[in-house]
Structures are given as structure tokens and as C-alpha cells.
């Protein structure tokens, strides 16, 4: 177990160091986030639909597509000089390689979300502070499932010619359950309805995380080896 965590940490630290030096994906994700929020903000008619009704969907569209930019890079950077072969040549457990990639992606997506959330509150004038605790919990739960599945799909897409196009095609169908649940819970939170009303959606999010994290760990080796 210690060996597994040590290798996972080495992979995550390497990916984050590379991203910190280039900042390519992070800056792209932030620019994308700001643009999406600005466009939705100016495109909506506040007299027709209230911000509170529109905001949950926009928040999760933004998180999903901004996060995908990071997921694309997760294995994209292993294509450089065929570094992926270097990982596969090593005796490191494939589970450790997967967990390392997941960890780096969680940090990446989490950082994007941490910047996007205040921007979202600013653009849509939605009071997030009173519901910040439950909102962060929902974001964390949805992000874990999103990143777990996205990392696996990124490893499948990396060896295809159009990896950047393939990832959304592979990933989006799997994101319907957690994103729907996250939107529903967020809508309830923004309209100040009791948290107990969304316990079913919350269970769905937790169940999705448990099932898909386990399944992705199980399937990673067969997707990454030739």
C-alpha cells in the first residue's frame, strides 16, 4: 500500500510540476470559464428567467467542459517523446499510475473550480456563501466521479488520432448521472430548499463515485496496455 501511494504521488507530482511550468491547460481552462460565464451572463434575459433558475445548469456546464481541458492533457503529455512507454516499461503498479493521474487531475479540476465559483457568483449574483458548505460537498462528490471516469477515458483516447475529439465523445455519456444529480442538488441549494429533499440525488452521487472509482481502477490496466 505504501509503495502504491508513493508511486501515485510521484506521478501526480510530476504531472503537476509539468503543468505548473507550462500552465497551458490551466490558463486555457480559466479563459474558457470566464468566457462561458460572461457569454451566458450577457445572453440571458433576466426578466424572462431568474438567475437562480438558470445558474445551476450554467455552473455545471462550465465545470464539466473546463475540467475536460485538463483531462485531455492528463495523458496528452505522455505522448511527448512517447513517455507513456516509459511508464509502462516500469514495474510500477498500473493502479498506482492511475491513482497518480487521478490525483493530479483532482488538483487541476479543483483549482479551476475554486476560481470559477467566485466568478460565477459575481456574474450571476447568486448568494453562494450561505450554502457554501453543502455546495462544496456536492462539487467535491461530483468532481471525484467526473475525474475518475475522465482519467480512464483519457487513457483510452490518448492512442487515437483525434484524442481531443474522442475524449468528450467517450466521456459525456458517462457524465449524465453525476452532472444531473449535481445540477438538481445545486438548484435546491440556491432556492434555499431543505437539503433533505435532495438526499436521493446525494446518494446517487456517492454511489456513482464508489462504483466508478472501483470500476476504473479495475479496467485501467487493460485500457492502458497496448
Amino acid at each position, binding site marked *: 500500500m505504501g509503495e502504491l501511494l508513493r508511486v501515485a504521488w510521484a506521478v501526480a507530482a510530476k504531472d503537476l510540476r*509539468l503543468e505548473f511550468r507550462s500552465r497551458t491547460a490551466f490558463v486555457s481552462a480559466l479563459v474558457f470559464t470566464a468566457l462561458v460565464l460572461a457569454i451566458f451572463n450577457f445572453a440571458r434575459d433576466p426578466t424572462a428567467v431568474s438567475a437562480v433558475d438558470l445558474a445551476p445548469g450554467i455552473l455545471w456546464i462550465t465545470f464539466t467542459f473546463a475540467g475536460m481541458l485538463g483531462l485531455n492533457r492528463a495523458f496528452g503529455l505522455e505522448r511527448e517523446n512517447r513517455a507513456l*512507454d*516509459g511508464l*509502462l*516499461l516500469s*514495474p510500477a503498479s498500473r493502479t498506482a499510475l492511475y491513482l497518480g493521474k487521478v490525483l493530479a487531475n483532482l488538483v487541476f479540476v479543483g483549482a479551476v473550480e475554486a476560481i470559477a465559483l467566485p466568478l460565477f457568483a459575481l456574474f450571476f449574483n447568486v448568494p453562494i456563501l450561505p450554502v457554501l458548505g453543502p455546495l462544496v460537498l456536492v462539487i467535491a462528490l461530483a468532481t471525484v466521479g467526473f475525474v475518475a471516469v475522465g482519467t480512464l477515458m483519457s487513457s483510452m483516447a490518448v492512442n487515437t488520432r483525434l484524442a481531443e475529439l474522442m475524449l468528450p465523445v467517450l466521456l459525456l455519456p458517462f457524465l449524465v448521472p453525476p452532472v444531473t444529480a449535481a445540477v438538481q442538488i445545486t438548484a435546491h441549494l440556491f432556492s434555499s430548499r431543505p437539503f433533505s429533499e435532495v438526499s436521493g440525488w446525494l446518494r446517487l452521487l456517492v454511489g456513482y463515485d464508489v462504483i466508478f472509482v472501483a470500476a476504473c481502477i479495475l479496467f485501467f490496466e487493460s485500457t492502458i*496496455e*497496448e
Partner: protein
Amino acid sequence: MNAPFPSPAAPALAVRAVHRSFGHVRALRGIDFRLDEGDSLAIFGPNGAGKTTLLRVLAGLLRPQQGEVLLDGAPPGRTDAAHRRRVGLIAHYSLLYDGLTAAENLSFYASLYGIADRRAAVGRALEGVGLAGRADDLVGTFSRGMVQRMAIARALLHEPRVVLLDEPFSGLDQRAAAGLRSLLMRLRAERRTMVLVTHNIDEGLELATHAAIQVAGCFASFGPVNGDLAAYRARYAEATAVRG
């Protein structure tokens, strides 16, 4: 995981009737050979003969569709990690990250191989390829020859018993090539098993104990090096003319 204790009778590397295809292209068609500890094999052949595919199969990056590769008598599978620990590959590509420094790249690989004293291992590896002075420079700023030296340092970092080399001299200047030649001679003296793919017959025969000519996925010839360069050149010309 520790490598299983090798059987004293087992060859260091045994390849049995290995086949590998990509769609309709049959890249390897029944490759068969064995090398004992300390043997080194030079493989010559025209482009498209399947030499790189063979090295990738030996390294465990590709699985043979038929046949098997045994290291010290053990097939890969449950012992995959032990198999990988014993093999080092110098490939066409460096397998390095341009955005990391030389030391960071090697330190990362040392973590993957579970090397205990990473700093010392990285220092030795960089010293061995003459890049100790560039440890803190990004690999992306290196020349082609320096990248190739880094690739050699990466492949030998974990001191593999079987070293696979795919055109290792490409991109090296004369001085670096001489350095690599003496490094390979040292590995031979340390009784490591080597498989070297090269187009340079002189160089290959100088470094190897055995030589093979690979044409269209098969070995057209395999045997110990006898030092008769002219005869070997003639055999190579004949094999590639007939079967190429």
C-alpha cells in the same frame, strides 16, 4: 516485489516462436533464439523487417500473439513487475519529459523503479553519460545527442540485467558515440545480456557475441560472431536480396 530466483540452467533471454501482426501486416513470424547471461546479440535488417517490434515485444510493451519470451526461464504474467525490473530499453524516442530537468526526469523514473537512494542513483547515471553539469537544465533545451545520452541514462538507471537498444548511436557525435561504445563494452564485461538493433554492421559485430539478420519478420540467419566482416557483409547482402 523481488524477482524470482533464476534457475541456473535457464538462459537469460529465450524467445520461442514469437509471432506478432498488426492487422494484415505480419511483423514477426516465428522468431526463435536464446541468449545466455553475458551474451549480446546484434540484429541487422532493412527497414520494415520488424526489428523494433521485436524489441518492443522483448521489453514487454507488446504481447506476442503466439510464442513466448522468457527471462531467466520465467514467462511474464504474474511476474510482470519482476520482468520489467530486469529490462532496460533505449528506444527511438527518449521517453523523457521536455518540461522537466535532467535530474527531475531521472528522479521520477527512479521512483517508478523503487530505487532507494534516488539522489545517488541519479548522480551516478548523469555522471555515466557525461551530463552531471547539466542536471538542472530542462531536457527540452538539450541537443539531439544530449537527449540520446539522457535516454541511455534513463534506461540504465535501475541497472537492468537485459539491455535492449534500438539504434542507440543515432544522433550521437563521434565523441559521444565512443563514450557509448565503451559503456556498452563495460556492460558486456559486467555480463549483462544485450540485444542491439543497428544498421551499422561493423559497429554491431564489434559489440556483439551473436548476430542475426532479420528480414520480413524472420531471422534469416542467427549465430555467434566469428569476426569475418567481409563474409558477414556478403551474407547480409544475400539475405536481404533474396527475402527483402
